[in-house]
């Protein structure tokens, strides 16, 4: 297993290097720093201010090769900073990116953790319920509702939720955020509710399929033959055996717990990492954007390795070799 993990980590490092080189090409070579400077300083900025901005942000140095000082290049700077997690300053307003990430992680986790903690068990429970009542009207209705629910864009959930639950019924504040824990719950309730609702359709349908596949297996028939009741069969036998595909699906969502939901945060005015990313896109803030992409890639690879390890826990038959 250790050899396998080492191999995965080496491949992960190679992938990260590839991501970093791609980010360098995209955000440093392909994007014109003059454009970024003009966007940051405004239309009325004189050419001298633009030139000074380029110097201040290190964009005046050679990109890849500097015969006089081989390490004084933008490529070396980019790689060494990213690997040391020294993210520097935003292109848009010179604010330290690390400080911005620290301020954004709280609000992001405030949305994504409850969303995950409520959404996953609820989806599993509903899927178990629908699978339990297989071939009845509940199952058929459940599938129809799931297909309808997953066909609707999350934007509609957000706007519909804000209009119906915020504006018409006045159950929740329509948007906003407050770091005070008492008030934060009030503001986070609607985005969490909408996020859970938007994810239910696809999750319940997928988990139902997984559970139904398991209920047709021999060990389920054996359990029933031995007198196990319906509830025991579903919870003690089907659920644990269905965990591998569930784990695979869940592992894909974990990096987004940290990078945030772009749309939810943006529409609900939550100053989290998703909002930071959207803002960076809107402001051509490539320094922030490449940090967000880099962190997303790191998280993705870390979660993939962790998921591989988790497979061996949920299913002792799995061996990592």
């Amino acid at each position: 297993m250790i050899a396998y993990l080492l191999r995965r980590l080496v491949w992960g490092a190679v992938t990260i290097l590839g991501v970093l080189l791609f980010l360098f090409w995209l955000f440093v070579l392909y994007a014109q720093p003059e454009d970024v400077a003009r966007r940051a300083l405004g239309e009325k900025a004189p050419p001298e201010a633009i030139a000074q901005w380029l110097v201040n942000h290190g964009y005046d140095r050679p990109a890849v090769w500097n015969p006089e000082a081989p390490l004084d290049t933008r490529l070396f700077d980019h790689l060494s900073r990213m690997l040391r997690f020294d993210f520097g300053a935003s292109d848009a307003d010179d604010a330290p990116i690390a400080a911005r990430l620290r301020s954004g992680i709280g609000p992001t986790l405030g949305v994504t953790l409850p969303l995950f903690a409520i959404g996953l068990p609820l989806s599993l429970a509903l899927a178990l319920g629908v699978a339990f009542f297989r071939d009845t009207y509940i199952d058929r209705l459940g599938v129809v509702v799931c297909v309808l629910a997953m066909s609707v864009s999350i934007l509609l959930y957000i706007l519909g939720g804000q209009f119906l639950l915020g504006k018409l019924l006045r159950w929740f504040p329509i948007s906003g955020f407050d770091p005070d824990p008492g008030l934060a719950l009030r503001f986070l309730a609607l985005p969490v509710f909408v996020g859970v609702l938007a994810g239910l359709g696809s999750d319940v349908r997928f988990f139902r399929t997984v559970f139904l596949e398991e209920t047709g297996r021999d060990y389920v028939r054996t359990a029933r033959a031995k007198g196990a009741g319906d509830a025991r069969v579903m919870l003690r036998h089907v659920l644990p055996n269905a965990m591998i595909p569930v784990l695979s699906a869940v592992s894909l969502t974990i990096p987004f717990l940290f990078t945030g939901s772009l749309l939810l945060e943006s529409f609900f005015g939550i100053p989290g990492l998703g909002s930071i990313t959207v803002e960076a896109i809107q402001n051509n803030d490539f320094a922030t954007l490449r940090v967000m992409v880099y962190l997303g890639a790191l998280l993705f690879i870390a979660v993939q390795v962790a998921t591989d390890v988790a497979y061996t826990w949920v299913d002792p038959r799995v061996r990592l070799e």
Partner: protein
Amino acid sequence: MVQDPDRFEIVLTEAYPQILFWFAMPFTSPVPWEAIAAYDGQEGRDRFADHPVGTGPFRIAHYAKRSRIALERNPTWWGTEHPEWRAPAAIYPTEGAPGDAEAGLLPPDVVGQPLPFLDRIEMRFEKEAIPSFTKFVQGWYDRSKIPKESFDQAARGGTLSPEMQARGMRLERTVMPGTYYLGFNMRDPVVGHDAGDRGRKLRQAMSLVVDAPEFQRVFLNGRGVTAQSPVPPGLFGYDPDYRNPFRQVDPERARRLLAEAGYPGGVDPATGRPLRISFDTGDPSVQGRLRYEFFVAAWRKLGLDVEIAATSYNQFQDKIRRGAYQLFMWGWIADYPDPENFLFLLWSEMGQTQSGGPNTANFGDPRFDALFLATRDRPNDAERMAGIVAMRDLLETERPWIELFHPEDYALLHGWLSQVKATGLTVPVFKYYAIDPAPRAEARVAWNQPVRWPAWAALAIAFAVVAPAVVTWARERQ
């Protein structure tokens, strides 16, 4: 030159009366050098930009630039510490502009009172316009702009809707000191200076078919003042009675001018085809295209073939820098309320392609330059007015710009917020505002009572759907 610890003197090398406006702008606000030295952004310390320290009537209580800024009354403000000075900036004005008294801006119990009136101001950063406006309607914000999507709901035809009136709101209309225009690149051989009389008549003809009031009606909910010259309302040199003869829609005259320019029916005799002109823009969005199509359709009626060249904003900027454009749409909002801040946009020294200045039309006319320099540093007297009128007349004929409109801002205010007068400039005026908190608290409660029955109805439906299946399962089990 420093005179004493509290005073310094600035000696100008040439006359520049506009410097007085500079001292009213945020970037000349006095700040303590110790604070700048302390908040240097090094070794984990805040940057000054994230920890501002000033000398105003309010100080920062909470500063999260991206979500929430809170200000609180500054007990060490010089105006508070020295009420006996009765300094003009520290007491509510005793006189105002014409119409201010009628608008209730000079109530006798407030005039001459020490400023500020508010103890605390909370500002929330809202990215999306519609939720922000909804929260205003629910009473959580005291003042709001009107998003496009809610315009008819709030202020159809320039007056407040009955729904908003019933909530005790007021509509605040402010004509901004700004001008939007279509500009010709005067360095272009077809539409610019080098085309001589031919180019001038082409520009005049194109100006005569652009219907700015219709543009305002279609795209701006009817907001804005139709522009006749570069100088916007509220600034010295603006004449509300002036009508630019080339800004009145007259297609017949336009056709005649086009024929005189050598393009009869819009046809370029060199090619035998409609004269092709490129309309360069940095807005490739669908909404942007619709706007530009409005102008293109007007010119098409003259027989001209104007092609919209929409690129990204940065590519457009690049074209502007290289001078590779013919026609563009642009706007300018005043930095300070002086006509010089608009007329310099056509001064040859400010030529965009030549010197990177804001004269994007690259207009260069020695007559205009002489008039501009003669009026630039003058006080607002008759001679300055005569110079501005002469420049206006020159632009009227030369047509480097097709003036469109001066933008107008609509905002809504709740009845509990008073003493608000929009300036259209980025000048902080919170110290004059006053709030009556009791009606606000009552309205917030009254307007935000939750409607609960749909929750019970949803639960009942869910129960009705699931119960039969559970009952059947239980029976089968037995």
